[in-house]
């Protein structure tokens, strides 16, 4: 891996990041299997170069954007963010990336665009997990336009000063730190600006359990898991659970996005 230069960011937490080992060996990426060790095990075959992202829908300059080209126009920053999984565990990850909004502005967002839809690569010969119909592939996610334009929302291309490990969503993935981890879609091949709220994979699979917004919220229970507290991965057998914070602790920056919304309805 080539070392990536990245500027420090005021948005970084000063909490201690998880080790590279932990981050790259424990995650969900169902395209490579259901076990949290499976992505590390099976993602090796993924071809990430060449890579391009198809940007379309309500944009001024639709088209296929090669990754090199995307990276030319941006300043990479290190963003050390908390990551909270809907399953009740959490980590701290030193991502390297750039604000999504810079790419969207480059493509030119038309006034009618109200949501952004994302899709993950589907390549069965390199992704053994997509042969089973666990989810309706491709994996799809979405954000409201104000969420997408928020400075905390980044497209990440690396972590720990190196290129993104394949199992973590190489070569380019979304990171939205105030939402449950599954919103941060990996290995993105398509970004569409759209007028209507797009379908998202987990919501389609089980609408009662996974809402479109999926903001981290200890007061809104997942039907199968309490979201009141979380276990920080890597902190040892007897480390105390952590109280989960509203918006994963990013409320100061993002709470105003949801002013007037009932978060137990728009969960």
């Amino acid at each position, binding site marked *: 891996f080539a070392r990536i230069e990245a500027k420090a960011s005021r948005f970084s937490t000063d909490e201690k990041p998880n080790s590279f080992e932990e981050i790259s060996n424990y995650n969900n990426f169902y395209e490579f299997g259901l076990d949290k060790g499976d992505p590390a095990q099976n993602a090796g075959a993924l071809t990430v170069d060449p890579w391009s992202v198809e940007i379309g829908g309500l944009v001024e300059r639709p088209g296929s954007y090669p990754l090199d080209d995307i990276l030319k126009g941006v300043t990479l920053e290190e963003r050390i963010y908390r990551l909270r999984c809907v399953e009740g565990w959490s980590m701290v990850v030193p991502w390297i990336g750039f604000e999504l909004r810079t790419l969207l502005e480059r493509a030119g967002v038309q006034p009618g665009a109200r949501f952004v839809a994302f899709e993950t690569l589907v390549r069965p010969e390199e992704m053994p997990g997509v042969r089973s119909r666990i989810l309706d592939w491709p994996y799809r996610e979405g954000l409201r336009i104000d969420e997408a334009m928020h400075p905390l929302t980044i497209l990440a291309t690396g972590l720990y000063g190196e290129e993104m490990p394949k199992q973590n969503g190489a070569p380019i993935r979304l990171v939205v730190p105030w939402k449950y981890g599954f919103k941060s879609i990996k290995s993105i091949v398509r970004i569409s600006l759209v007028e209507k709220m797009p379908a998202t994979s987990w919501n389609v*699979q089980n609408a009662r359990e996974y809402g479109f917004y999926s903001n981290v919220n200890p007061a809104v229970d997942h039907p199968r898991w309490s979201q009141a*507290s979380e276990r920080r991965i890597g902190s040892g057998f007897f480390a105390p659970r952590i109280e989960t914070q509203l918006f994963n602790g990013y409320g100061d920056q993002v709470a105003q996005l949801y002013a007037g919304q009932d978060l137990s309805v728009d969960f």
Partner: protein
Amino acid sequence: MIAQRINGALRPVPTGLVYAAGLLPLGLLVWQAATGGLGVDPVKGIEHRLGELALQFLVGGLVISPLRWWTGINLIRFRRAVGLLAFFYVCLHLAVWLALDLQFRWAEIGADIAKRPYITLGMLAFAAMIPLALTSNNGAIRRMGAAAWTRLHKLTYAVALLGALHFLLLVKAWPLEPILYMAGVVALLSMRLWRTLRRRA
């Protein structure tokens, strides 16, 4: 006959050996936990493995009767050990959930038991196993009488179903492993039902 040869070979085997063998997976688990062999999230690893072992012993206990009916291989003598091992692993599974996972946060534990169907079912299965474990000795059979004892121990069927359902409901989406356990339990219980109905006819 192969079955008779197997039965003959098993006759000198003490049941203590089954208990000892049944504790080997626990030994392995402790060793893995001590040497960092359980990966990035050892608490979840231990919790799931213990639950899985409990389910495996439950299913194992259900195999013993059909095995005798269809093949003549007789493992009835070892069934108590298999059942008590299942209970033992259920207790450890529950203890790890309470102590290491939820860390005695009773408000969350209470809410989980009341609100999450898979935890409610798991607790029901645990509760139903207590009378079974307590009566898994010769004195209890004598006191209760064989008929009443047998009737009580039919509760095992419900426990196995609850256990498999507990696993099936806790996972996201529909992975294969819990479906296989459920299919196994349903198949083993269907064999019993089929045999009972056929005998009545």
